[in-house]
């Protein structure tokens, strides 16, 4: 509430960090049904942009297409401009430099996004080796420990030695957040990062995200179907319905004066559920 983004009012003046133009995605099976239908929006520097929609409205597909990690047989059209370059058209090497280093993602299921046969520490060192080959020198162990502390994990030695199944969902998600901000990315995509966690942990994780954002200054693309989180977190909201962008507006006007039928229905259903 108090920690909201800085630029909700003057977003028109600022240069967009990421621009999605007429993005359409279709998967190969399913007789080429389009999951995203010419989606366009802009992500401005420093803001928290929420992406809301029902299940199956294409939120996760949108997140994956920004990193271009869709299955190779998916058909992609349109453009995603990041630093004057189209991510859709990039070659592997350029993509690898963007993935993880400039844009990073946190997945829904923290337990599933770590490899079960490798320790948490291995995940860190693997990522560090990839991201820190040039530039930042210094003791990688110290950096990792610092980040974990910063993310609310204090017995770092034990956590780094443990396997994913030995830790709780909250610890894993904290570790995941620490891992994804370790390369100091420009954009952090949070793909329903709290939907598999209970409410207490959820609020801790959300607060952590906000604190870290203050400190590291990354831009957040927050994907969720939880309107409560949207209200607390986001400056602006993109409402997706069946793969189409129905509304792009600031959070307040979306919640108070929804324009489209689908948005109204979604908000009403949500309110009925929590009351």
């Amino acid at each position, binding site marked *: 509430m108090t920690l909201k983004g800085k630029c909700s009012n003057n977003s028109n003046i600022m240069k967009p960090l990421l621009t999605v133009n007429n993005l359409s995605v279709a998967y190969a099976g399913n007789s080429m049904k389009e999951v995203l239908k010419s989606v366009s929006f802009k992500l401005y520097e420093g803001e928290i942009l929420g992406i809301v929609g029902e299940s199956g409205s294409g939120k996760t597909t949108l997140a994956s297409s920004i990193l271009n990690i869709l299955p190779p047989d998916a058909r992609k059209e349109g453009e995603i401009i990041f630093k004057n370059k189209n991510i859709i058209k990039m070659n592997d090497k350029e993509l*690898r430099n963007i993935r993880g280093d400039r844009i990073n993602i946190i997945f829904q299921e923290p337990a599933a996004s770590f490899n079960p046969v490798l320790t948490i520490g291995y995940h860190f060192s693997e990522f560090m080796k990839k991201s820190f080959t040039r530039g930042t020198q210094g003791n990688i162990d110290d950096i990792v420990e610092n980040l974990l502390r910063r993310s609310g994990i204090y017995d770092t030695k034990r956590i780094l030695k443990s396997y994913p199944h030995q830790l709780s969902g909250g610890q894993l998600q904290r570790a995941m957040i620490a891992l994804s901000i370790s390369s100091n990315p420009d954009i952090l995509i949070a793909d329903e990062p709290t939907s598999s966690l209970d409410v207490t942990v959820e609020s801790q994780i959300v607060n952590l995200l906000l604190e870290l954002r203050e400190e590291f200054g990354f831009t957040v693309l927050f994907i969720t179907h939880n309107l409560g989180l949207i209200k607390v977190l986001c400056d602006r909201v993109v409402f997706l319905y069946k793969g189409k962008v129905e509304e792009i507006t600031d959070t307040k006007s979306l919640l108070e004066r929804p324009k489209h039928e689908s948005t109204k229905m979604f908000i009403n259903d949500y309110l009925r559920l929590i009351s």
Partner: protein
Amino acid sequence: MISMWNELKRNKLALAALFILALLYLAAIFAGFFSPYRYDDGSIAYRWAPPAKIHFINVEKKIFYPYIYGYKVKIDKYYRCIYSEDRSKIYPVRFFVKGFKYKVLGIFSVNRHLFGVYGTRIYMLGADLKGRDILSRLIYGARISLSIGIIGVAISFIIGIIIGGISGYFGGWVDNINMRVVEMIMMVPGFYLMLALRASFPPNFSSAQVYFLIVVILSFIGWASIARVIRGMALSLKEREFVLAAKAVGLSDFKIIIRHILPHTFSYAIVAAFLSIPGYIIGEAALSLLGLGIQEPQASWGNMLALAQGIVNIKLYPWVLAPGIIIIITTSCFNIVGEALRDALDPKRKVFQ
């Protein structure tokens, strides 16, 4: 790894099989020590000599240690040697006797052997048509037969796992091409493919070349089925979220395959490797049996078994079947251990305990 061993320990049959395999490999490694004679050391005077009878007690002469009698030979009207015991002289069986020189592990030159006799020849499992000791040849043959199993499996699993992983992970045309090649190999019956491949090389290779050739041929046939299974596993693994996460942080495809996909296939691969070693041992034996593999005087279980091809030989000299029995024992041991491993690694089994 430790829990796997604990599971395995409960299976007594598998432990026994593992013990037998360990003995066989030990004998193969220290072949010179365990065999009383060299594999090519024969004497025509002892052709088709039967297994020696070992006596322990002789009350008249007050002997209470193992000893054997020499052979008395009579040639019958078909020019066959008929052996009987020559009771006039006693040859004690001694341990750690001096014999031919051999090298332990290829370094130390030693001439002591586990057992032997002075003055005559001891044939624990009889002799073949050139008077060579079948036991010694079995032990020397184990070197070839047992190592071909392991080396062949290692090579074909490395190839199969890498190719399967690559096709499963990348999919698309890479997968298509790889799988069509795999199907072409699997389409041809293995044994005929093996014969055809062998026939495409000159017949007069040296032993080392033939050994290498057999390994290559067996691996060439063997990798296909493994690649197929690993591909299937990689196909399902690449959809898992941690692989997506690895991709999302920008790891290279090579690293994702090696570190994030293939380790998940290893528990299958270990079991499958154990269960497919017998196939390689039998493949080598089959080639050598037909005279296309290891050549005389080098011993391998296959070319020793060639003596047992005629019914006359089996009728008159049943000990030529010894290599066949050893092949049966070895392959069943590998199967028993492989199946025990499969049970030990099966997560569903723990429900019952």
